[in-house]
């Protein structure tokens, strides 16, 4: 979106809007009923009002807190606003996790193993799969656009097949099916193969659209200065397709990072596998699940930052 050059006050600072939001928040909190929380009970005791009084009081207090918070934040610059809202939401989530009453000692004792074994395996599998998928995608996209009957048929059959089957099924097919043909593959290579084939298929379509988005004039201009197909692709078309392709590709990377958990079914010791096995002995499933969830999330955030960096790099040219 291209912002206008005229600015107006934040909506929430307009009394009517603030009042409307306050009313809506009150209604929502009243409906959710916080009378039975410690805060509600305290309210009922100190004021001596009844249960419904506590319910309304708790809702009003929370609604005021909520709207006051919004108004307060709205006075800050956008960067601060974003950081503040992020921190608040993160605090709410942390509070939610605390409800489970997790055993910190247990988490600490397993954390190093989770990272040294699980995280590295997950990263290794994902990185390998993504690199291979990238190569497949470039080749697949060129094949699809080539106008060569064989290439088009093979590429479209490939994308159709691997986008058409559930990834879990592909993992099993490759791990259990290939040995039937006489190729014995280890669990890790099989997992990498399944992931890269599947995501290669999705990314083929992304790359194809990206290449097609480059106007015909760019091809003509590069041919006119004497470039040949390989150079045109590498120097002119793909670099220009990159900014178009990067956001959806980043999406695929993130999705794949988490879909790498599917290879746990064939016994690869990655994060998901460990999260389910480490807690089993002592029935501390929740500790491991939540720890691994946080690790996945941190990884994703790291990827998001990388993606934003790359996008920023390309945006500088326009």
């Amino acid at each position: 979106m291209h912002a206008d050059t005229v600015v107006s006050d934040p909506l929430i600072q307009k009394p009517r809007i603030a009042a409307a939001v306050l009313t809506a928040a009150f209604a929502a909190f009243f409906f959710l009923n916080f009378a039975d929380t410690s805060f509600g009970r305290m309210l009922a005791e100190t004021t001596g009002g009844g249960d419904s009084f506590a319910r309304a009081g708790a809702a009003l207090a929370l609604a005021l807190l909520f709207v006051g918070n919004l108004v307060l934040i709205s006075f800050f610059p956008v960067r601060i606003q974003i950081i503040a809202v992020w921190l608040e939401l993160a605090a709410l989530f942390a509070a939610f996790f605390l409800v489970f009453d997790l055993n910190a000692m247990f988490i600490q004792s397993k954390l190093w193993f989770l990272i040294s074994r699980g995280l590295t395996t997950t990263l290794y599998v994902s990185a390998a799969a993504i690199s291979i998928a990238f190569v497949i995608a470039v080749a697949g996209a060129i094949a699809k656009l080539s106008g060569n009957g064989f290439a088009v048929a093979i590429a479209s059959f490939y994308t159709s097949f691997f986008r058409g089957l559930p990834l879990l099924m592909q993992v099993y097919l490759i791990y259990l099916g290939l040995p039937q043909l006489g190729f014995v593959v280890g669990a890790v290579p099989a997992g990498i193969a399944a992931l890269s084939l599947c995501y290669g298929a999705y990314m083929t379509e992304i790359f194809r659209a990206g290449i097609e988005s480059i106007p015909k004039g760019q091809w003509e201009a590069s041919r006119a200065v004497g470039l040949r197909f390989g150079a045109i692709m590498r120097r002119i078309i793909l670099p220009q397709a990159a900014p178009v392709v990067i956001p959806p590709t980043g999406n695929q990377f993130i999705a794949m990072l988490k879909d790498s958990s599917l290879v746990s079914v064939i016994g690869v010791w990655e994060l998901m596998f460990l999260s389910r096995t480490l807690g089993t002995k002592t029935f501390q499933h929740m500790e491991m699940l939540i720890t691994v969830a946080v690790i996945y999330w941190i990884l994703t955030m790291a990827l998001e930052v990388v993606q934003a960096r790359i996008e920023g790099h390309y945006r500088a040219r326009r």
Partner: protein
Amino acid sequence: MTGNDGAPIISVRGLNKFYGEFQALKNISLDVFPGGRVVVCGPSGSGKSTLIRCINRLEAHQGGEITAAGRRVHAQMKNIHLLRADIGMVFQNFNLFPHLTVTQNLTAGPVWALGTPEAEAQKTARLYLERVKIPEQAEKYPAQLSGGQQQRVALARALAISPALLLLDEPLSAIDAKVRQRLRREIKQLQRDFGVTTVMVTHDQEEALTMADRIAVINCGRIEQIGAPREIYDRPASAFVADFLGTMNFFDGVCAVPGTVRVGDCDFRCSDESGVCDGGEVTIAFRPEHIEWNSGGGGGNRLCCVAEGAEFLGAVTRIVLRADGVGKTFIAELPSALAAELMPAEGERVTVTAPAAELRVFPRLAQ
């Protein structure tokens, strides 16, 4: 330098080009000799771009022969990139590489196609950027340049591959009149300095007349006339050409007696050079600047007119006249200095002469 000696560097013979059912080029033949400056001009949609895009085979043609820079251009040709590397092209809409800086736009061809060392290519690029007078823009991206600057980059990029041949598709269309004049001169200078043969497309008649040593006028995919600018201006082969290059007055008439055309109640005498005039329906034509005001001249066609108005165009003044018995207005042009003396008031009667030698006669166009 522009003599028609030696072999042509571009030779087009009987070229036909179809877009589906639509025939964009019809039986085009054109020779361009080394060092020549050929301008292809014609109205919008007449096939000008299509013609020059066929020469480096950005478009496939369906019939006829094209030879460019010593190679026959056809579908099965090997190493088309070598031919293209010999032909610089400026596109109608520039087609600069938006992800590359101006310098990289210029070095793309030499480095990535011809394998010129990077440093050398950059030196050449700087040279050409200086020639088109934008050396200070070298590190910018195309989107950060004005239309005129982009135009110059496009021109420099075409020159930077050191072509034997330059194809320019309306290279000055996006530039304002003043800068355009200057760039015209610069392009001519570049042509002279580097000795490149040029084929340039334009729909601007002034550009055609100033830039060309030969003009090809194209209409509806057909070449109407090829010749030197003066020749085309003075002796247009058809009413279309006459109308397209320069201003022309047209009267429809009938040729009853050979050498004389009757328009309304007036008889116009023609000269031997006027064109075929021996019967049937014709159109006569004469240029506004050929009207003579000192009406004593012999061999002229005297016209009694009423002045209907005048337009001041700077150096010249254009006067609208209505001739008695013809029932149609026409335009006379004369130098403004002269017009100040002779200028008739609106509604005043004047007598002018249309010299027989300057009269052109064309077969009447079907309407």
